[in-house]
């Protein structure tokens, strides 16, 4: 049941771990197993031992599990608010096939798809046609697509707006022949 080898492995792992100790103590900071209550982005990324991806560009802040003692429910509420608050912004790059350079827009400025579409149309001087749930965009050579958190390229408009804003990493306005694969005019 117990393997001495495991312990040795543990010891070596500990030697190479990143740790942040509190001033005045030698004891390492406690890191509980990540708890379902916290948002995945919130706790796991801030656990000191993990080196998961950080979503912000700023250096990782020192964090102690469960401190300050604010209930997970409340923490999550505040986090959601922060993400929605003004000034936070969610800037994503927008590329258009054939355009010489990219643009950047702040998705949080818009409340729904038509607003976003209008803004893109103005920015790149094109029109996007009409969106149909089954067939995608019709009536235009241009199709707005986006890359989501999983790295997949999706058609803009399929998912609820909030879900789109939280999962969109970049936008690409596809044009012409490449457009066929997305179910336009099928």
């Amino acid at each position: 049941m117990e393997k001495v080898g495991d312990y040795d492995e543990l010891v070596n792992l500990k030697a190479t771990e990143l740790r942040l100790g509190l001033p005045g103590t030698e004891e390492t900071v406690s890191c509980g197993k990540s708890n379902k209550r916290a948002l995945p982005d919130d706790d796991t990324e801030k656990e000191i031992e993990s080196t998961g991806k950080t979503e912000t560009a700023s250096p990782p802040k020192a964090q102690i599990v469960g401190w300050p003692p604010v209930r997970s429910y409340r923490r999550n509420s505040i986090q959601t608010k922060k993400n929605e608050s003004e000034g936070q912004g969610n800037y994503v790059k927008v590329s258009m096939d054939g355009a010489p350079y990219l643009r950047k827009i702040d998705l949080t400025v818009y409340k729904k798809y038509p607003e976003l579409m209008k803004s893109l149309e103005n920015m790149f001087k094109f029109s996007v046609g009409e969106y149909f749930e089954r067939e995608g965009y019709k009536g235009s050579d241009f199709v707005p697509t986006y890359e989501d958190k999983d790295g997949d390229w999706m058609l803009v408009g399929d998912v609820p707006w909030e879900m789109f804003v939280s999962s969109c990493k970049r936008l690409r306005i596809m044009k012409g022949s490449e457009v066929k694969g997305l179910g336009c005019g099928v």
Partner: protein
Amino acid sequence: MALRLPSKVLKHILSFIDSNEDRNSVSLVCKSWFETERKTRKRVFVGNCYAVTPAAVARRFPAMRSLTLKGKPHFADYNLVPDGWGGYACPWIESMAAKSPYLEEIRLKRMVVTDDCLERIAASFKNFKVLVLTSCEGFSTDGIAAIASTCRNLRVLELRECIVEDLGGDWLSYFPETSTSLVSLDFSCLDSEVKISDLERLVSRSPNLKSLKLNPAVTLDGLVSILRRAPQLTELGTGSFAAELKPEAFTKLSKAFSNCKQLQSLSGLWDVLPEYLPALYSVCPGLTSLNLSYATVRMPDLVELLRRCSKLQKLWVMDLIEDKGLEAVASYCKELRELRVFPSEPDLDATNIPVTEQGLVYVSKGCRKLESVLYFCVQFTNAALITIARKRPNLKCFRLCVIEPFAPDYKTNEPLDKGFKAIAEGCKDLRRLSVSGLLSDKAFKYIGKHAKKVRMLSIAFAGDSDLMLHHLLSGCESLKKLEIRDCPFGDTALLENAAKLETMRSLWMSSCFVSFGACKLLSQKMPRLNVEVIDEHPPKTRPESSPVERIYIYRTVAGPRMDTPEFVWTLHKNPEIGVSKLAIK
């Protein structure tokens, strides 16, 4: 010749005694009093679901109509207890379903509740009336639907800060058209939108509805429509309170609120736009409880609201209130009994927390009835604590969270020992205390010496040595719950004061220096304690003297529990066998 009180007479006398503490005392007098008491107890409270078996409870209290259970230790709220630790409601529900079918009320806190469990409740208790789940998890909206559809006499359904798997807003439509008994409904922690028309109809046919707490998905329009149908509400949790600014919307909202002449408690207000706050002015003079802790309302708007709340007894607010706002509270809210100030940025290195110790001093000076405080700020001073203690000797609950660990008195650079000494000495009725900031063993010597009525004590990042724990365990006579994290001590004090642990409900220690060997020893010495070592690394793979991650010790007459997960090591009483990992279901 012994004079005996006829049991009928005793029964009658006992019918006037509601407090379980008193009833517990009654049951210790003699066997016949024990018998009479147990047969008449209707409301049963079990503070630790592992302290006693469900069967024993059902057996002892045949007349039980209301059961309250608590599961996980308090620090689970702050992610210190790994998932899967325990606290399952099912065994209790199963047992009660079989033995106490007349159960009408179930209140659970920090427990794991499944949909199966909820369905069982709905199916087993014919006269079921009250379900209150606080900080529970493990169930979905399907389980709620089962309760709604089956419990014909349901009066209270409250989900308070639960983690619920939200499968949509359909659950609300499961309340049958014949259901008219609702008195209280709280679904504020659910995400999905419910059909407003379903809600309107439910509210319209529930004339006894007094308390309604909506979730953020309910819009301002929805709120107006509900308020029109339920002007008799005494407690309201608004929905999101966010909308585009439209003058007609504002007028409608104001009117709806002004018709709610019995409103005493207000909460929710997520995303409230300051421009809409004046719609609440008409209810302010009647409010006794206001929870703004989820509302990002800032200063001048806050004061405008609060200065109208002259009857306010309970205020929960974010630190956006600033010291200035608290000064206003001190002058306008003279009836204040409970104040909680939460951090708007609960991060370690948030540097611009807009409240300081001065804010709390203002309130302590101005609000004579203040007895319960929860306060988050960056740093504090001994002088402030001393003033607070002097001004408010009637404090019953004092929880100060100085966010920066080990922060000394920032004016003198000394530990906060003197300050907490003043609190412990001055507030003789103190029942709950949370300390923080830089504290030496001395602070705990004072607390041990003076805080004779403290029942629950929470400590983090404090003390110098084992003496700290020793002072507390040997001094605090009324101590029932002690929770400690990141403090530098362990074994000696624990073992020396082992007997004390049997007089307490529980002791939690995490990231301290308690060794596995000491846990084993303690467990051997004290058969009526469950000593749980909660550690992701098997203790056997390390020397016995190395510290364990967490320990949770609680008195029990139920023996070691059978549902421990892999990372919980309940020590076997037999030392030769060593640690026995009890099988998980």
